[in-house]
């Protein structure tokens, strides 16, 4: 399948999804007016990927900041990929001093009870 690349914008993150290698990366800022509209192609890509998933799945988040509506999207992305494989590597990168982003990662880890690797950059 083709890779999905969406360039970052003022209010939306960079998306790099490589279904063949099971690699899903989102980085930057996210506070679009309607998250459903911006993230629609991402979920469409995941639906397509589900037809022929790879052995290994790696999901990477490297956030500057995001709004609360985006946090629900993050949960949805993780859950939809986790449905496919028991073992999904989730790497949650955060910059030094970005404690708030680290805390948000910890919160998701706690709520979803999953292995989420918090990695300080």
């Amino acid at each position: 399948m083709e890779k999905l690349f969406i360039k970052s914008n003022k209010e939306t993150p960079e998306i790099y999804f490589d279904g063949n290698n099971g690699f899903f990366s989102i980085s930057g800022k996210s506070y679009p007016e309607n998250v459903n509209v911006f993230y629609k192609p991402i979920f469409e890509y995941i639906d397509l990927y589900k037809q022929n998933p790879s052995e290994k799945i790696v999901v990477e988040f490297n956030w500057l900041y995001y709004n609360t509506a985006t946090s629900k999207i993050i949960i949805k992305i993780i859950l939809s990929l986790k449905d496919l494989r028991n073992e999904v590597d989730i790497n949650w990168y955060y910059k030094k001093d970005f404690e708030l982003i680290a805390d948000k990662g910890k919160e998701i880890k706690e709520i979803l009870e999953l292995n989420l690797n918090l990695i300080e950059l």
Partner: protein
Amino acid sequence: MYNLYKVFEKEELSLAYFGVFSDEITSMVIDLSESFLSKTENLGKLTKKTSFLIAESFQNIIRHSVLEKDRTTKVQDNKDFYQISIIHDKIIIASANIIEDKHINALNNHIEHINSLNSNQLKQLHLQVLANGSMSDKGGAGLGLIQIVRKSGLPLKKQFTRIDDQCSMLLLGLEISINKTVENNTKYLTSIERHYKKLIEHDILLLYKGDFSNASNSNIIEILNNNFVENGEILGGELKNIILIIEVMQNVSKHGKILNGIREGIFVISKSNNELYVECSNFVNQEQYEALKIRLEKIKSYTFEELDKEYKNTLGNSYLSDDGSGGLGLLEIARLTQNTFTFDFMETPEKEVFYSIKVKTS
């Protein structure tokens, strides 16, 4: 907040910015001003011309401003100021600079001289300054004002107001008629000065009144973020403030009532006792008002533990409404402010409900 809204009520769009003007934020304020223009119909060729005038006017503030370090205590209370407003068929661009009195005569003569020239004479003067003009220590070559008058074909309105024994405020304004009838009045300078004083009185650093679409929101957010940046990098300790501003703006935007085809609101950043406050207001529907009031009162009654629990419960369910609301925004505002945010609903004489939410940043 409603009283402040009333001051700007007749302006369809208004952006006022106080503070330190630098080249870094110029482009962002220009972007925001341009997003104003994109909402105004029948501008045609004026859009490009106005964008140019906005940029020049803005850069003029930077170049004539008294350096921060030179300011006396009294002058520090009077900040450089920029405002763009759209009122019916007019675009008004205004700037206020604090200038040292020793420059007044030269500046006054310069403005009067360029106002008196016809287009050919302006062109000659432009070429002459290009050939001979020396760059000032802030990078200006005396061309900005000439260019503004040349491009607009309008005289530059000016007003000097004494501030102390060393400095004065120079108010400069341009009124561009969208219907192309050139009006020669200075009434609007008086109204700009009234706005300026009102905003100073309320310790306001930035005011935006107009449509709360995301295009405008994101430009405001970017301008504000610039205050939380050092060497091009966002400061980790400021993340909380950035997220707060986003949530407050999006909260008001989502709940806003559509009046005259736009989701109109007012957004203000003010400074009081060295604390920064963000306040956002707009009109809400009667039925939304009831539900929102109950929700806000419930959140305010929560202990930190209850707040945290509801936040996590809401985050864990995958519900998102069609408009992308996840029910977390107000909970996040409460968490980030240690539940110190305040809100207010006011019934206006026109029987509309005016909703405000205010947070203290840290």
